[in-house]
């Protein structure tokens, strides 16, 4: 080509077109930044290389939050879904979550449509080979083809492609995903810029031909009616749903694994990176849980465009012939024909303590990082970080202060705080148990928690915010009606309550109070209520009625969590100055000083979660901060109480 090409005029460059990269690029472009998305392969944008599903417990809440903030993952899933299912409907509201199976090919294509229709966004096929850094500030991204794109901010979302290597048994070759070339140069450039990299490992199960499975030997797992989707803004269109199937491994399955365990990359050492404990391979499950004689295997469709099915629970990178034996020893899969062998992938990741809460690297201003590169696993975790990194890259380019979410505001806040504060020693996956305020961070109230913030950023439109406000008004109205309603001790009410297996009323009682009985649902009570209360409920959207019921039933718990948050906020959000000298603080343990100096937490709350920092250290720090700083600045973001309802 000869002449070097340098493109000017871009505010934000996103490197990587996976789930993190897509959200980052869309957020940045929608916030008015001229954005370029560099991808190794335009055809592979938004590929789902592992499971064909979005959501689930913990993860589904992330997707709802992404949607509430104006992200794309929820909407896109609703377009491409082949099954929708609300999980844990019989359990408490904190663990209720939506999960969707998606058609992989159509998921990719609808995401490409979203990207290509965004006027501020261009797609650039190429391999990012390096970053240009001047005075510890990002200036440009270089491409292997010799071009350079200058930018004010850069988001790295390279997934498993940095020096990627795929592994089965003792065999391996360089690839970002099976058959796809890895990114070979960028790692060195990042290291030269002062970033540390380490190796992680992840794996995917085999896929089989769905026409060769025996559904009669498995239990069918159908979807719901599909009325509830991830998106707050549209209801998903109706369609025929595909079922999943559930089977279990048997002692024979385990025998096959045990017999060939010496061939596993875990044992033979052909994988050097650390793998996920929470999404373990079948090899690892047998090592970790030798007492269990069976593990569940979900057989999930990969879409309507293929007969391939995904074997969730049989993740393995054992040699291919062993994989076939494992599959065939599992009921319902005796004749299943292997289409894609499972494999492990090993890649460079960026230990995330090198990031601030805005996902900016501490070493290079204007350089952000998101997704699997930060040591996470899962499309939802990736997309959540991508959205936040894209928002913050745009704010950085516009010279605005960063946007972060607190742990009491969103799972996204929990995710990022965990990553940058505690770091990861295995690929990080979201669970509800990671959130201390999980009763407040629910699927059903994501828009109430976050949409006004998305609106302020320019990602949620006025009409969308009106939609949220309208629902909130409806909810409050219904809640007030319910609050005022009492149910009298009548033969009718006694009969109903007894039929539900709970005690009849001795005297009139508030309907809301009766609703706290676990046996009673709102639907059960409605016939007992006067028409002026009952009718608005029956005509209200189902999600509104559900939220009123949740609030009535869990009000006490919710109030307690809110009080706890308020109590904590004083210390949680106490800022620590950037130039704070931990070494001078008497009484801090050596380990705490070491960790805090290295990590430079921004608030006392963040400092309290640094591994190696004890509550005693925090007390010392608290006293010191108050004494030394006399009047500590209050964080700009006035911690409004977390809304509920």
């Amino acid at each position, binding site marked *: *080509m000869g002449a070097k*090409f340098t493109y*000017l005029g871009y505010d934000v460059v996103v490197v990587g077109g996976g789930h993190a990269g897509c959200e980052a690029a869309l957020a940045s472009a929608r916030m008015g930044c001229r954005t*370029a998305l560099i991808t190794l*392969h*335009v*055809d592979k944008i938004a590929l789902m290389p592992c499971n064909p599903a979005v959501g689930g417990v913990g993860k589904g809440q992330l997707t709802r939050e992404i949607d509430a903030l104006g992200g794309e993952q929820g909407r896109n899933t609703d377009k491409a*879904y082949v099954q929708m299912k609300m999980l844990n409907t019989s359990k408490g509201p904190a663990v209720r979550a939506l999960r969707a199976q998606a058609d992989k090919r*159509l998921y990719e*294509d609808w995401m490409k*449509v979203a*990207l*290509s*229709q965004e*006027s501020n966004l*261009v*797609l*650039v*096929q190429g*391999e990012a080979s390096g970053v240009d850094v001047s005075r510890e500030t990002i200036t440009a991204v270089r*491409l*292997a*083809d*010799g071009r350079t*794109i200058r930018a004010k901010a850069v988001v790295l979302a390279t997934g498993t492609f940095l020096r990627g290597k795929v592994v*089965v*048994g003792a*065999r391996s*070759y360089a690839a970002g995903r*099976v*058959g*796809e*070339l890895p990114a070979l140069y960028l790692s060195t450039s990042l290291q030269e810029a002062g970033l540390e990299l380490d190796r992680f490992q992840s794996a995917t199960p085999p*896929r089989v*031909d769905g026409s*060769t499975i025996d559904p009669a030997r498995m239990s069918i797992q159908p979807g719901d009616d599909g009325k509830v989707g991830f998106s707050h803004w549209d209801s998903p*269109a*109706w*369609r*025929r749903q595909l079922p999943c199937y559930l089977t279990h491994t048997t002692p024979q399955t385990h025998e096959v694994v045990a017999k*060939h365990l010496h061939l596993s990359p875990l044992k033979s050492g052909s994988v050097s990176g650390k793998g996920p404990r929470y999404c373990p391979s079948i090899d690892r499950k047998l090592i970790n849980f030798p007492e269990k004689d069976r593990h569940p295997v979900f057989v999930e469709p990969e879409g309507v*465009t*293929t*007969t*391939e099915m995904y074997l969730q629970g049989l993740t393995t990178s054992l*040699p*291919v*012939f062993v994989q*076939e*034996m494992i*599959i*065939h*020893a599992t009921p319902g899969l*005796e*004749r299943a*024909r*292997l*289409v894609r*062998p499972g*494999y492990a992938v090993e890649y460079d990741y960026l230990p995330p303590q090198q990031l601030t809460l805005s996902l900016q690297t501490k070493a290079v201003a204007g350089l952000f990082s998101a997704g699997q590169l930060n040591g996470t696993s899962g499309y939802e975790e990736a997309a959540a970080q991508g959205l936040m990194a894209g928002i913050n890259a745009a704010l950085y380019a516009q010279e605005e202060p960063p946007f972060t979410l607190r742990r009491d505001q969103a799972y996204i806040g929990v995710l990022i705080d965990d990553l940058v504060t505690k770091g990861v020693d295995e690929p990080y996956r979201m669970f509800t148990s990671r959130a201390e305020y999980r009763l407040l961070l629910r699927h059903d109230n994501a828009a109430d928690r976050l949409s006004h913030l998305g609106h302020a950023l320019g990602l949620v439109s006025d009409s969308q915010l009106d939609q949220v406000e309208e629902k909130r008004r409806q909810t409050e109205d219904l809640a007030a009606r319910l609050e005022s309603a009492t149910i009298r001790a009548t033969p009718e009410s006694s009969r109903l309550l007894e039929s539900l297996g709970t005690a009849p009323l001795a005297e009139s009682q508030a309907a809301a109070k009766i609703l706290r009985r676990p046996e009673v649902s709102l639907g059960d009570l409605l016939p007992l209520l006067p028409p002026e209360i009952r009718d608005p409920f029956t005509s209200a959207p189902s999600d509104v009625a559900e939220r009123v019921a949740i609030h009535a039933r869990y009000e006490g718990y919710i109030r307690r969590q809110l009080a706890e948050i308020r109590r904590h906020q004083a210390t949680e959000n106490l800022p620590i100055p950037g130039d704070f000298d931990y070494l001078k603080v008497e009484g801090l343990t050596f380990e705490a000083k070491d960790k805090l100096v290295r990590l430079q937490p921004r608030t006392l709350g963040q400092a309290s979660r640094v591994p190696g920092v004890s509550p005693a250290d925090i007390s010392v720090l608290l006293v010191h901060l108050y004494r030394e700083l006399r009047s500590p600045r209050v964080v700009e973001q006035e911690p409004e109480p977390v809304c509920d309802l």
Partner: protein
Amino acid sequence: MDTSTNTRRPFMNTGPAPRPAAATDPTAADLSAADATALDPAAADRTAAEVTAADVIVVGAGVSGCACAAVLAEGGATVMVLSSALDSVGLPGHGPDIRPGSGGWDEIEQTFGSLPAPLRLAWLNAACVPATGLPLLVVDRRAVSIETKRALEVIPGLMFRQGMATDLRVRKETKESTRDLVEVETAFGEVLAARAVVLAPGLGLGGVMTIGDGEVPGGRYGEVPATELHAALEALGVEFEVIDAAVAARYSGAEMGLPRSCRGPESAVTHLVPVRHLLDGNSDSCPQVRAAESRPRSGAPLDASAEDGALAATSCAADDHSAPVAGALGPVRERLAALFAEGSLLPGSHTWAPDLPPAPHWSPELAQDVCLAGSSGNGAASLAGQGAICLPDGAATGEFYLAADRPTLATGPSAAREAVMADGMMDLPGGCIPTRLPYRVRAFAVAALGKNGKLPGIDNVWVIGRSAGVGDYLASLRSGADAARAILRDMLGDTHEETRGVASTEGGAGDTVLKRGRVDDSLEGGARRLGDEP
């Protein structure tokens, strides 16, 4: 599917591993590889399974590999398609334009006529024809890929397997086995054996791509090339020659000021009519067909009255329905109808159902219904390959493929753009980044192949498609189909009857094997047609 050719023939059922299930059960026969391992306790102790995977293994799932596999399976063989890129099965890897040689519509008709109906429809339903009736199909490549995989997966006896072939060995007849077997080893250590192997690795044999200043390994963009397979074949004494292909740049339609609908003066705009709409009997309701049939200038071909090719981005032919003519498309419609009639398949009807999730490539709002051709105002000449032309490249990304003259392709990323601008076709906004740079691939193709791609010196191995030196999509499709028929004949030991309505193209317009050793020097000469990959 044409059922008459779909009966399974018990003709290649020997091998070292006994088939455990009755041969009459097609599912069981497909499972032979897996079952042999599962049921044979001795197999468990091997480090790699050595079993017959199928009658024939096709290495590579590109255009020629899929054609070959479909014909083989339709002819009754069990076929395993081995590919490391199962997410792009059947993908036309270069441009969206399917151009016949001098054979014109005859070549298009014969090529697709020689394919099994499911594969034929996967292509034709994703194709558009220019309203001028020129012999050209413009396909949504992504749609071809998705629909090809969807169609082939359900053909009995045809199975896909993810794996990268790294080695090829011939196991001679032994006491246990009365026939030779060809073994393919994969990068993950699998050993798969078959009676015959068809190699269709495209430009992956030692492929190197030049993109701008960079060189990366690869045959199809972004994918790991079959470098080890190339080395293995060399070790077997196979002779190679160097081949070279060029792919043009792509730009975002929106970035170029080219929304998905028509812009620009009529002299440069040609409407594209989806084949499925042209034929489905409801074409009156299709805006593209209506627009194509209502040409403002008395139905004159685009080029005849065009004085200036420069785009002023003003009028739009599609808006003017004043002078309806049903000229150029009439004969085309008839030819295409014949391709659909066979097997009683309705165009478009099988493609999607209302209770399935929507697909961008069937979405009317995303239809890319024009192409631009503006070589000095001579639109038709451009479409015929003598000038710059800008073709839609898929509904999902909204890209346009900037097929330009060959010298343009041989140079850098801006050259295509500059050539097009010099051509007066369009004015790209300054700083407009191509979504994909043009690139060249240099790879090895097997030289001195026998008839239908038979590899001399090694029994039961065929080479098809670009790795056999075949030039374009149509020729690749034919080379796959021809090899498949030859294999069926060979292995059956008798004459495989042509049961298709359209005769084999072997030796006719579809003589697919190019002359050797001329590819390199012709590259710079600009002698060949545009979009014609070596």
